[in-house]
């Protein structure tokens, strides 16, 4: 094991795939954004820069290019930048990539990963802050991964790049600079298996993407107050490890969900529904959802801060379930 940045681990997955598969092609530069960790893409750019196509600003056609190439047998990684931009390609993602395998009776495969950064990012305002995960999860045929550790980023991206179904990798820029142990030997992290990020007995907090960092911080602070919280990271939304989530809820008898999307029909709402369907008899208190309030994201920092779910709101929600 070696301690690495999330950004390094993500690039390693791409570099190793490029080494293994000479046909592997990528669309879109700036895979690590424009921040402090952007330079970690160097190993990929230096060795495999000729595999990366820099497209014009045409999200719909760029998505089509990736999907069509994948259908024709080229394994693809397509980087979109901000998740908000994928809404320009939503028809291609949902109606082409998502349905191709089923609608062709299993004849057509789409070996493709779309990478995008979701979420509140300070100053993104109303058009660059989208967290579209629940919207995409509402459509069949698209896998969705949201890894939150360097180990999972590399292992899940490797796994997604090896399978023949289209996968949305919904990432958050705040994760790029986080550090963690990454195995030195080749490995994959299978999709559809949740990770218990912190074991606890009093309450289950199910969080996704950056919200896992908030949930872990909230759990540590709650421990000082005598509340022992378990933090569950689903890691992939499609497929979803319902079993692990329900098992944790049944163990603790309480549930708080956290995600960066809007609350209505959110990933948190889906988890809450699972609790109602499969763990009602084990619940000792009301379920709480921490999510965005229904307001377009404002630019002004204190306003954006006021709508951002964070450790304080998670702690308040946890305490409310005990009230």
């Amino acid at each position: 094991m070696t301690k690495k940045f999330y950004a390094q681990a993500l690039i390693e997955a791409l570099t190793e795939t490029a080494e293994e598969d000479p046909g592997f092609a990528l669309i879109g530069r700036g895979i690590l954004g424009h921040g402090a960790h952007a330079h970690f893409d160097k190993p990929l750019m230096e060795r495999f820069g000729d595999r990366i196509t820099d497209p014009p600003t045409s999200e719909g056609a760029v998505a089509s290019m990736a999907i069509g190439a994948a259908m024709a047998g080229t394994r693809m990684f397509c980087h979109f930048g901000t998740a908000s931009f994928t809404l320009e390609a939503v028809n291609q993602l949902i109606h082409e990539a998502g349905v191709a395998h089923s609608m062709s009776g299993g004849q057509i495969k789409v070996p493709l990963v779309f990478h995008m950064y979701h979420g509140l990012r300070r100053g993104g305002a109303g058009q660059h802050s989208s967290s579209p995960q629940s919207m995409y999860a509402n459509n069949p045929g698209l896998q969705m991964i949201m890894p939150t550790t360097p180990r999972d980023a590399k292992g899940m991206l490797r796994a997604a790049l090896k399978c023949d179904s289209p996968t949305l990798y919904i990432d958050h820029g705040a994760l790029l600079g986080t550090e963690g142990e990454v195995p030195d030997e080749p490995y994959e992290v299978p999709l559809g298996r949740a990770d218990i990020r912190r074991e606890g007995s009093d309450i289950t907090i199910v969080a996704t993407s950056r919200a896992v960092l908030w949930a872990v911080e909230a759990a540590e602070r709650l421990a000082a107050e005598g509340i022992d919280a378990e933090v569950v990271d689903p890691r992939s939304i499609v497929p979803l490890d319902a079993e692990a989530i329900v098992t944790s809820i049944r163990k603790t008898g309480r549930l708080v969900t956290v995600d960066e999307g809007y609350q209505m029909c959110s990933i948190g709402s889906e988890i809450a529904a699972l609790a109602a369907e499969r763990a009602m008899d084990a619940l000792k208190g009301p379920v709480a959802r921490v999510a965005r309030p229904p307001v377009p994201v404002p630019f002004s920092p204190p306003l954006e801060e006021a709508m951002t779910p964070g450790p304080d709101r998670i702690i308040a929600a946890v305490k409310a379930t005990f009230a």
Partner: protein
Amino acid sequence: MIAPPAAQDRAAILHCMILMRRFEEEVLRIAQDHPYVGRQHLHIGHEATGAAVVSQLTPDDLFHTTHRNHGYVIARGADPGRAFAEIMGRKDGLNGGRGGPWHLCDRSAGFLSTSAMVGGSVGLAVGAGFGLKTQGSNAISITHFGDGTLDEGICFEALNLASIFSLPVLFLCENNAKEGQRPSSMLAAKALRDLPQALQIRAIVVDGRDADAVAEGAKEAVARIRGGAGPVFLQTNLERWPGSHQTKPEFPTGVTDLSLAWEEDRIEGKHADWVREHDGLRAYAKTLVDDGSLSRERVLEMDREVLELLAKAREFAEASPYPDPDSLMADVFA
């Protein structure tokens, strides 16, 4: 100047056109007999374009088609029985009943998808071209679409990408211009070819009812693309078949009678003008008989062979069961 196709190829093109026409007529009968079948978008009137373009391709070339796909899928060798079965939602359909009439797909015949989202196939075909180029393949990517598709923004983006990256894509625009009183496309451009030409894409315009002209245009286009010169926009001008946009399955110009190719006095009815002036199948049968390439008898014999084949295909489809409801969740993921 590229020579017109050889006599033998012309007979093959006519045979393919008859197959396309009779297939669609059977689809109309299926729709009459089984009212539950989805809305049909028939390729009648497009056969000269379809068969002639297909005649210039190789089995490795990849197709992205639209909801008006049946002619191409059959022409490229898909089993007509499985195609009928798909249109009827049966288990033995090409897509196992998952696609229906708008989405026939046969990977073994080079089809990657059949998108009924207008413009969808144009974007995907650019992707197939990108994939083929990346793979170092000599095959090309083809997408066909109506002129109305050019109203969609994705077409501009896709043409632009294909031109920038010099991708091996044939953009086949079946310009079927009018739909009743409403034009099928509404563009500020004076001519359809202005759009690809503005993006530095070579445009070839031919009479889409004339199979020889289409074959010649397609031959030039395919040679350019395969030679690495980038995409080509091939526009074939057609007059829509009066039944091409129907809500009820009807034969407005009657069931095709190939002897009208030489018995023109018998052409009559409300749509006689379409049959006389715009039916590429009748025109091509007449051309080949008039220039001595084929006898009348041979034309009628081809037609009988096609009808026999399709009768068997229909029987196969009718006998095919519906998919088992227990199979509902199959094939969502690969």
